[in-house]
């Protein structure tokens, strides 16, 4: 049995693998992190190797073609996002790792977009920001808030990365607030600032829990109730007014009602039997702007058992009256010559009467042409 031979073979292979592994992940070469601009050209030297050293470059473990080399340097032209990765250069013969570069391709930041809003007046306001286009590399943001000449603290939001909160110390201030933000990354830097009065940024959150219910025995009514937004801290001293809009699903035109107080309203002009969509918005009574529209509520007014598509409320109907309402009224009754004779079933005499009429009409036309 030739067992020792394959055994020795495995041992050699394992040792070779271990050596290669050690060379590839040698601790003396931690990757150098490099940021380069999208679209630019970059030349990566192989660490301290001579220009004419014989090296091989790999990216993320894949060999790179020798035509990208300029001596021992790797040249990348017209950088794309796909060029980002771990580049490593090895001594061609010994596979000794010479140098590693973690390349990140990105962009310098454009001017950030900053906005501030107070949905918790008079407690405070928050500012949030974002970049109009991505940079693909990490960015750091720095926000400063000035009230006149006083610097105020903007506390980071616990959940959202691009938001911070400021607490009002003084109310009814004539001095404007100035919020500036600067964003920077490895490739560049940008800033923007906004100035505003305390009153102009007040915008509550939409009303909550909007519920619409039909009103029993009232086919044209819908009762709507809602709650002031839970983020509004003091509805007593800073009351909200509300704006209600509603329409049947089948129409595009909204009806509007403005309500100066109270959190309930009864719609009295709903079309019977039609499903309605209802939304509510809120605003501080005196300052700021309207909130966004609330989550929509749907409801259909109360209807009695057979559903009617008319808009008038109708008295409860018996079978006899139903029959009579389906028959055409006497004034628009079509003259039916067949009925004069028999007074019986409508269909056959009616058909005959049509034929008779046509025959008469044809005869009249013929007589007319003869006369001419």
């Amino acid at each position, binding site marked *: 049995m030739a067992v020792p031979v394959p055994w020795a073979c495995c041992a050699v292979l394992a040792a070779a693998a271990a050596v290669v592994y050690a060379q590839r992940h040698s601790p003396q070469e931690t990757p150098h992190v490099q940021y380069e601009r999208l679209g630019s050209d970059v030349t990566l030297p192989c660490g301290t190797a001579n220009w004419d050293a014989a090296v091989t470059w790999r990216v993320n473990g894949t060999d790179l073609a020798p035509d990208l080399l300029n001596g021992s340097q790797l040249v990348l032209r017209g950088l794309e996002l796909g060029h980002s990765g771990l580049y490593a250069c090895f001594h061609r013969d010994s596979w000794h790792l010479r140098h590693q570069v973690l390349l990140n391709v990105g962009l310098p930041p454009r001017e950030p977009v900053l906005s501030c809003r107070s949905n918790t007046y*008079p407690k405070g306001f928050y500012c949030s920001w974002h970049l109009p286009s991505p940079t693909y590399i990490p960015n750091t943001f720095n926000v400063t808030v000035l009230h*006149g*000449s006083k610097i105020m603290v903007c506390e980071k939001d616990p959940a959202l990365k691009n938001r911070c909160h400021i607490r*009002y*110390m*003084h*109310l*009814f*201030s*004539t*001095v*404007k607030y*100035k919020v500036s933000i600067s964003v920077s990354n490895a490739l560049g830097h940008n800033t923007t600032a906004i*100035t505003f009065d305390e*009153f102009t940024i007040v915008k509550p959150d939409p009303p*909550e*829990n909007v519920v619409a219910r039909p009103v029993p025995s009232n086919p044209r009514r819908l009762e709507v109730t809602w*709650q*002031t937004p*839970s983020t509004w801290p003091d*509805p*007593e*001293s*800073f*009351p909200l007014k509300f704006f209600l809009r509603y329409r049947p699903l089948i129409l595009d035109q909204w009806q509007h009602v403005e309500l100066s107080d*109270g*959190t309930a309203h009864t719609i009295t002009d709903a079309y019977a039997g039609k499903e309605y969509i209802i939304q509510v918005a809120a605003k501080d*009574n*005196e*300052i700021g702007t309207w909130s966004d529209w609330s989550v929509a509520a749907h409801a259909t007014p109360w209807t009695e058992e057979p559903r009617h598509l008319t808009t008038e409320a109708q008295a409860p109907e018996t079978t006899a009256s139903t029959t009579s309402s389906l028959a055409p009224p006497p004034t628009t009754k079509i003259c039916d010559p067949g009925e004069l004779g028999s007074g019986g079933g409508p269909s056959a005499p009616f058909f005959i009467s049509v034929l008779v009429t046509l025959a008469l009409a044809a005869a009249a036309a013929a007589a007319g042409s003869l006369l001419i």
Partner: protein
Amino acid sequence: MDLRAGDSWGMLACLCTVLWHLPAVPALNRTGDPGPGPSIQKTYDLTRYLEHQLRSLAGTYLNYLGPPFNEPDFNPPRLGAETLPRATVNLDVWRSLNDRLRLTQNYEAYSHLLCYLRGLNRQAATAELRRSLAHFCTSLQGLLGSIAGVMAALGYPLPQPLPGTEPTWTPGPAHSDFLQKMDDFWLLKELQTWLWRSAKDFNRLKKKMQPPAAAVTLHLEAHGF
């Protein structure tokens, strides 16, 4: 006498003291009125009306002053205009003001502001501006009377000027044209802010004057979850 140069604030302060001694407007005629509720509502409505009026008046006046005063981003430091009554107040202090103090602060502020506005009127260059300012002054006088009525209905005395605050008639350093315009700018800004504050002040008073049951119901409705 040339009213443009000279210590306009001083002269106006003097005029203000004259106004103090005028009897409060006839709103004090109490012919069996049903308590302060309706007059608080009326006062609140007046502040809203005035705030609306001021928006167009301020726009016209700032255009008359010209740039940079009529630019929306104009954000100067608050220098001078020391004697203007400031609406700004610490949040907790404002919340805890008692009714008497709340009303007194409003009354005193508008008395001063009215006086300064009348001075502005005298110096305004165009007839149209003078007309608008005069109309606004009349409305503001109405607001003052309304506040006085509320105070009287609640049994609070009208504030009297403290002795020693009456200015002596001494012409101060000449006020430059630009500084005068800055003062006008701050006057209008402070007036607008006071009207917003008063709306909140009277809201608070209105809620307090309501019968307790209704107030509780409102409270439950507002926090009904």
